């Protein structure tokens, strides 16, 4: 038996609701997820692919995406997973993401006037483990607190707090060891 008009309307309303919800999510979080990807990927194309894949997953799983601020954290988790796959060479090139890549390519120009101090921080940061770097990045770049870091990394809030504390201590240690004269390296 074919569906009644009422049933068809109900199905259409549900579909429209999901679409509207995804559009709202996309509008509220796209810039931030793009920022997350650009800060972690070595090229604009890679970053755009990660964003495209992340939102494609969010669309498929729109009913599972939490509302409010938790949605952003949920997307960070997905993006983090996509990024890990990407590093294993397992994320596709999205033709459609190329136009997005064009918009952020300028961000990949080498910083010409990086101060000696900033260079020292970069060197120290690069020497840290990937795990430590991610903990510090989530706090400094995404502006997350221990609770947010815990959600994204899948650990307890207390564990996140300890990891943030230890990562900061190790960065200071690296800075002090590399450049004892730089104030940032002092306790």
């Amino acid at each position: 038996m074919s569906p009644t008009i009422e049933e068809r309307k109900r199905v259409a309303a549900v579909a429209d609701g999901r679409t509207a919800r995804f559009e709202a999510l996309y509008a509220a979080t796209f810039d931030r997820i793009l920022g997350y990807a650009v800060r972690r990927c070595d090229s604009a194309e890679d970053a755009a692919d990660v964003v495209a894949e992340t939102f494609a997953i969010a669309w498929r799983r729109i009913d599972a995406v939490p509302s409010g601020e938790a949605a952003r954290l949920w997307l960070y988790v997905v993006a983090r997973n996509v990024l890990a796959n990407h590093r294993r060479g397992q994320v596709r090139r999205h033709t459609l993401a190329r136009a997005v890549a064009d918009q952020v390519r300028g961000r990949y120009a080498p910083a010409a006037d990086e101060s000696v101090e900033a260079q020292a921080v970069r060197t120290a940061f690069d020497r840290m483990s990937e795990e430590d770097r991610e903990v510090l990045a989530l706090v400094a770049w995404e502006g997350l607190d221990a609770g947010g870091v815990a959600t994204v990394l899948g650990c307890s809030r207390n564990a996140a707090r300890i990891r943030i504390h230890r990562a900061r201590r190790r960065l200071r240690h690296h800075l002090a060891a590399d450049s004892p004269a730089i104030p940032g390296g002092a306790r």
Partner: protein
Amino acid sequence: MTDNDVDRLARVRDDDLAGTHAGPAAAALRTAIIAGELTAAGPRTPAWRRAADAWRGEPKGLAAQGKRGVTRRLALAAAVVVAVTGTAVLGPSLVEDGTGPATSYADSTIEITRENGDLVARIKDPLADRQRYADAFKAVGKNVEIVLVPVPPAMVGDLINTQGHSGRVSSDLEPIDGNPVDCRSVPAACMLVIRVPIDGDASVTYTFGRPARPGETVAVPDDGPARDAPPDAHSTAGG
């Protein structure tokens, strides 16, 4: 302070990217995602594997824990379908050259498709912000603005005004959901369909009539001052 030090290492700050989501590139990507074009199997990873990875990446405690098993099975089942049919999904609605405009667009307010050499826009929400329509046309590479004004039932769907380059344009009313409805007598049960040629990039603004909401003042372009719509103008046959 190490947080500030690390902050300075960021290639870009979120604030620097504010508004990117509203640009044509992001809009075209959003349309493709909603249209399901990004679920097609890629060259490197089988779709089922990506779906399984995506499922594993779900934050603990955020999704309904009790549904996980079912969700996983559904995700895998859906992914297998995608894997089997995936490449067939790639088709004419992909962007033309990767950086050019999309060939189709859909969101909750408007849907634009190609039909017989025309771009056909179906207005799903006649009360939406006109910028949404303009963004949709921009995503398919057209500089077309659509303005919808409340009119008496007999004028719903009519082209009322054209500003800028006047190209070939036509409009029609189509029953929503394919219901058998006489759109001329019950315009509120119908969707406005606008056809413009694919060629040409001139900037143009078209004004069409839409059903008035109950009590809303209607525009009467050629017959002097505006007048109030009958209270039931939105839902009944008019004249």
